[in-house]
């Protein structure tokens, strides 16, 4: 762990009245720094929080946003729950597989894009909904997805949309 990262994590601990509450925020910070929950990230969190690595593993495995495999630079989370499915999330996923060779859960082929099918993102009225690096995109038709991914390929950032 770099000094800067340690400082960041110590600051997170101080931000909560009871330091136990810092574990999940610290795991977010470590995952952002390492790209995934690596064995090193687990060790770091355990040491920072004075927990056993097994306790940290127990927490990381419970929550879907903590992941063991690195994601692409742009990680797509496409909602496939009830309302999104009614409005074409299956067509969107089929299109992403066909046109962009993106399969849910598969390792990123180019390091640029990766895809995950996720449960409800609380954006059902703007279906099909997705997030890219946790930024919302609404009413994501295959055509809109093509434009968006092409822009990201060209170096644009995923800044999300306003609801």
């Amino acid at each position, binding site marked *: 762990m770099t000094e800067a990262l340690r400082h960041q994590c110590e600051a997170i601990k101080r*931000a*909560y*009245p*009871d330091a*136990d*509450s*810092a*574990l*999940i*925020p610290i*795991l*977010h910070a470590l995952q952002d720094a390492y790209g995934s929950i690596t064995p090193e990230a687990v060790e770091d969190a355990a040491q920072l*929080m004075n927990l056993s690595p097994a306790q940290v593993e*127990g*927490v990381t495995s*419970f*929550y*879907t*946003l*903590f992941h063991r495999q690195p994601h692409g630079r742009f990680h797509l*989370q496409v909602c496939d*729950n*009830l*309302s999104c*499915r*009614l*409005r074409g999330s299956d067509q969107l996923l089929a299109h992403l597989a066909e046109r962009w060779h993106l399969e849910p859960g598969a390792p990123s082929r180019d390091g640029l894009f990766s895809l995950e099918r996720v*449960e*409800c*993102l*609380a*954006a*059902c*009225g*703007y*279906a099909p909904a997705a*997030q890219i690096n*946790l*930024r*919302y995109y609404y009413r994501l038709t295959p055509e809109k997805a093509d434009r968006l991914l092409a822009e990201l390929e060209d170096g644009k950032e995923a800044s*999300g949309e*306003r*609801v």
Partner: protein
Amino acid sequence: MSECRVLLANADVEGIERLPVYEAHGGYRTLRKGLTEMTAADVAKEVLDSGLRGRGGAGFPTGRKWSFLPNDGRPRILVCNADEGEPGTFKDHYLIHRLPHLLLEGMILSAYAIGAGRAFIYLRGEFLQGYELLEAAMAEAHEAGYLGEHILGTDYSLDLCLYRGAGAYICGEETALLDSLEGKRGIPRMKPPFPATAGLYGLPTVVNNVETLAAVVPIVAEGAQWYRTMGTEKSPGTKIYSMSGCLERPGNYEFPMGTPLSELIEAAGGLLPGRRFKAVVPGGASAAYLTGDHIDIAMDYDSLAAAGTMLGSGGVIVLDDSVCIVSFTERAIEFFRHESCGKCSPCREGTLWMSQVLGRLERGEGSEADLDLLLDLTDNIAGRTFCAFGDAAVAMVASSVRMFRDEYLEHFAQQGCPLEKERVG
């Protein structure tokens, strides 16, 4: 009938997420009124008298929930539940993105009312944009003296912490949320003790939903009697209905409680062209189906409960005649299987079993005995789990078998999904 915007009155104002614009539209005037002209007990009484019921799903009267805090001198905590994830529900997402200061104002008033010096906002992990918006709003509120030490020059101080979870539907259950906020796996606790006596860090705690806390602002501003002029006797006020599914203009619509379902559907632009109404899930994926017989049902807690379903979080999913009930129900149970925390056997094993049975029914490989098996499973899950998740997981399944038995039978007759066959041709 047009919308009745109380919470969402200023939702479309450009820049309302910034403090100067929010203030220009009356923002934080109610906080000033509450803190300088009213005692904490006055604010709490106004909320109790308003009859406001919790908007997270359970519909428990908010003022009564507050009244359960013991008077034992221990520090009290207010937690805002912003772990919105009930399929079909997207009102808290909207409120946080559009009106972050309304949530803050409601939280500060509520914390003052219950005597909490510390408060938390628990956002679901996916709400990163919401986190950033609230972080910015909190910084503005601090700067302006609405948050922190000696708010508006009074003796009241509030330390507010923002917190992001990491992806788990069950953390919307208030005791699972508290465990998650303590850095643990989010697994529901045994109740009692209830959070009011032993909540976060074992301290007296109130957990309220985003929409509930936002509603405290107009209640304190205009008074309980005014609030009761809207809605019904037992479900007063307005509700933000999240309208989604097979509709022309899905979105959030605020109406008085008890507005007929047909009016909500009309407000959301009606059905898609050429389609017929088939069913509705009136309160998120945890609610039982209703069919066309109930198209004019009053959308409030009691009317929906009387019809065997619930208002829940107000997530209204409308299905038209292009939707296969078996496939739709299978998708719902797949969600519950994925999200079961695994603590109780009936829920952990039952959701898996139901998803297997529904899978083979959708493929046309099941038998009529499977329908009895499904009902038997739902009977053995409902009421037999630690938390309300088990009841939630069976509602759509049990009602689908009761209301759409013919559609299941059609799957056996055709050895597959009739609507799927029609689509594929």
